């Protein structure tokens, strides 16, 4: 017992003594990396990381000296100063400026990590030397870092793509909402775009015409989202229940036929419906010829009827998706629940309401909420089927069936009022983001123990 204690005591003494040494070496590594990226890594004999980081810093210095960074900030702040075809192009200045600024911030994050990892590596090296007496090798440090940053390496391709193809466009739109970027007087090339603060938002909420359009379209968007989501969901559930009912034969046959609308590209089926339901279209001539109705029915040209038509057609196109999904979910519900219910004398209907529906709802809740968000922005349906028409004369550039997203489309592509469109897009985004955060937080993917 005694000699063991004795040894421990001396080890502890050595530890205390070495700690000061340790800190010194750690600080040296950190300081070196602070002075110039990669120097601390060289000090740690981690040549590969050192060279890569040094090259990065050289690139940064080059960008700073050559004025790239200055120009980027200048471009974003002024949006160009020389008008005319040969002059500054505000939009290119803004987007290219944003790219540089994002890279600029990224550089500082890497710079910070470079100092941190130089210190951490040094600490590891010294610990290794103290406790095992062995010296470190350059490879072992590299492989230690490789293992430590493995998840980051895995994610980096996706990170960069999302940064430039998802995040940057959103940032751009956010900024555009505070400019007067619009036809005809503020459209590059030839004209400059200026920062205008909250003017667009003020216009949207206070100006006659804009105000009515926004609230009107928003109300219809909400009605559309809620009705279609609920109808499609329970429509699909109904279909799945029918197919999976006891004693029904050829389940696969029915399922394959009913899934047809989901397999057809929307632009085909919706254009077909548009023709089928048009004023002089075949459905109307059939109805009139057979005497079922006296006059042609304005499926897509009456303000109220058009709204009902798009909802019904979406039920046709959307229910099969839920049917396919629910078929899978239904087969996963254990038979024992139904048997227990039957023994207690529950009718088929009671079994459906008290077992099937709650079980399915519980399992598909996250997807249901996501579909809600999807339908809020279901551009294809509205645009291809009705084009947002019939025109509503009291609205600014919007028709009776237009939802917010198709209104945005019309503002950007038909009128090129980018500033106002961006303004509406941001409002949509905030609504959707709140729903999304709420729903994803509740999903299992977020609830595993690792996340806490």
């Amino acid at each position, binding site marked *: 017992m005694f000699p063991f204690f004795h040894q421990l005591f001396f080890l502890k003494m050595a530890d205390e003594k070495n700690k000061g040494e340790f800190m010194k070496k750690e600080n040296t590594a950190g300081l070196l990396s602070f002075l110039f990226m990669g120097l601390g890594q060289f000090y740690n004999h981690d040549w590969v990381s050192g060279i890569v980081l040094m090259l990065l810093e050289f690139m940064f210095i080059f960008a700073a000296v050559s004025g790239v960074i200055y120009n980027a900030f200048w471009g974003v702040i002024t949006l160009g100063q020389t008008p005319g075809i040969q002059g500054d192009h505000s939009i290119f200045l803004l987007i290219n400026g944003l790219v540089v600024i994002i890279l600029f911030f990224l550089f500082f994050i890497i710079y910070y990590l470079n100092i941190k990892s130089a210190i951490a590596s040094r600490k590891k090296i010294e610990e290794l030397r103290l406790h095992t007496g062995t010296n470190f090798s350059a490879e072992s440090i590299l492989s230690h870092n490789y293992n430590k940053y493995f998840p980051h390496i895995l994610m980096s391709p996706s990170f960069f793509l*999302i940064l430039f193809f998802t995040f940057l466009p959103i940032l751009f739109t956010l900024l555009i909402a505070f400019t007067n970027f619009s036809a005809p007087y503020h459209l590059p090339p030839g004209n400059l775009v200026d920062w205008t603060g909250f003017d667009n938002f003020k216009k949207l909420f206070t100006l006659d015409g804009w105000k009515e359009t926004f609230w009107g379209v928003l109300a219809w968007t909400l009605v559309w989202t809620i009705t279609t989501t609920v109808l499609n969901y329970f429509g699909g559930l109904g279909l799945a229940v029918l197919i999976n009912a006891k004693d029904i034969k050829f389940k696969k046959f029915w399922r394959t036929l009913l899934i047809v609308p989901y397999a057809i590209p929307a632009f085909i089926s919706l254009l077909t419906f548009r023709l089928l339901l048009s004023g002089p279209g075949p459905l109307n001539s059939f109805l009139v010829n057979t005497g079922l109705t006296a006059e042609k029915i304005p499926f897509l040209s009456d303000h109220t009827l058009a709204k009902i038509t798009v909802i019904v057609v979406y039920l046709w196109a959307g229910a099969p998706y839920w049917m396919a999904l629910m078929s899978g979910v239904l087969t996963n519900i254990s038979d024992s629940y139904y048997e227990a219910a039957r023994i207690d004398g529950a009718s088929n209907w009671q079994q459906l309401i008290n077992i099937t529906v709650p079980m399915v709802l519980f399992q598909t809740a996250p997807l249901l909420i996501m579909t809600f968000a999807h339908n809020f922005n279901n551009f294809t349906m509205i645009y291809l089927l009705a084009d947002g028409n019939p025109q509503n004369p009291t609205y600014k550039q919007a028709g009776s069936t237009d939802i917010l997203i198709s209104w945005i489309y019309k503002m950007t592509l038909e009128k090129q009022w980018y500033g106002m469109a961006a303004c509406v897009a941001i409002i949509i985004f905030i609504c959707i983001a709140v729903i999304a955060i709420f729903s994803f937080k509740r999903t299992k993917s977020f609830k595993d123990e690792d996340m806490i």
Partner: protein
Amino acid sequence: MNKYKFYKLIRVSLIYVILTLLTFAFIIPSIWVISSSFNEGTNIFSTTLFPEHPTLAHYVTILTQTKYPIWFFNTFKIAVMNTLLSLFLTVSTAMAFSRFKFKGKEISMMTILVLQMFPSMLAMVAIYVILYNIGLLNTHIGLVIVYSTGQIPFNTWLVKGYLDGIPKSLDEAARIDGASNLTIVTKVILPLAQPILVFVALQNFIAPWFDFVFPQLILRNEDKWTLAMGLYQWIQARAQTNFTMFSAGAVLVTIPIVILWAVFQKYIVEGLAAGANKG
């Protein structure tokens, strides 16, 4: 007992009647389009369900007058590239989120999921300028990058949910046996995740056959168009005036997709259910 059998007969036949009616409602537009594509003439009214003189003339016209074969090949190429790149991106990201611990895991997952909810209509201006700057405008690679970036958040969430169901003890056992991170990911976990990977692959293979919005933004040359975009332009111009031709085009664009569906229906239904369960 007789009474019970009678009720059962009523119930089953009622379901069959409803199913038949519903199925009819769901497939009649498709049948109408298919049959009119074999009709002579151009008129929407003169088309009959069973054409008197069935003709393939419209199909011949489309196949010879448009660049259908080129568009078909382009779409196939884009679909394959998109499948590979998307799988790589999704799997590596989901793997990091599911199998490793690092700072800011939850917040970064939430951020990308929320970001993808942004209406992409306005993002297009920025995407256009970025692709222009890096010289990928009017290229298939540019289109593939846009597609595969767009699918990352949702599919990562889906695959991560599935991977979480694979016991972590497998990783630990392999790690004790001296396997590296990369080996664990590729040799231990990936084989077990096959069903969800097939689903993600299929989704990404099918997407380019449907989409006509992004090709219009990115692809300028007719020779580079995809099938959906080319035929969309072609049939949109003829929808009002030449209905039979529209129908033939519609059938031609749908056939490859329906074949894919028929072959992989099992995986799609399974994958949808997996998304629902694991979510």
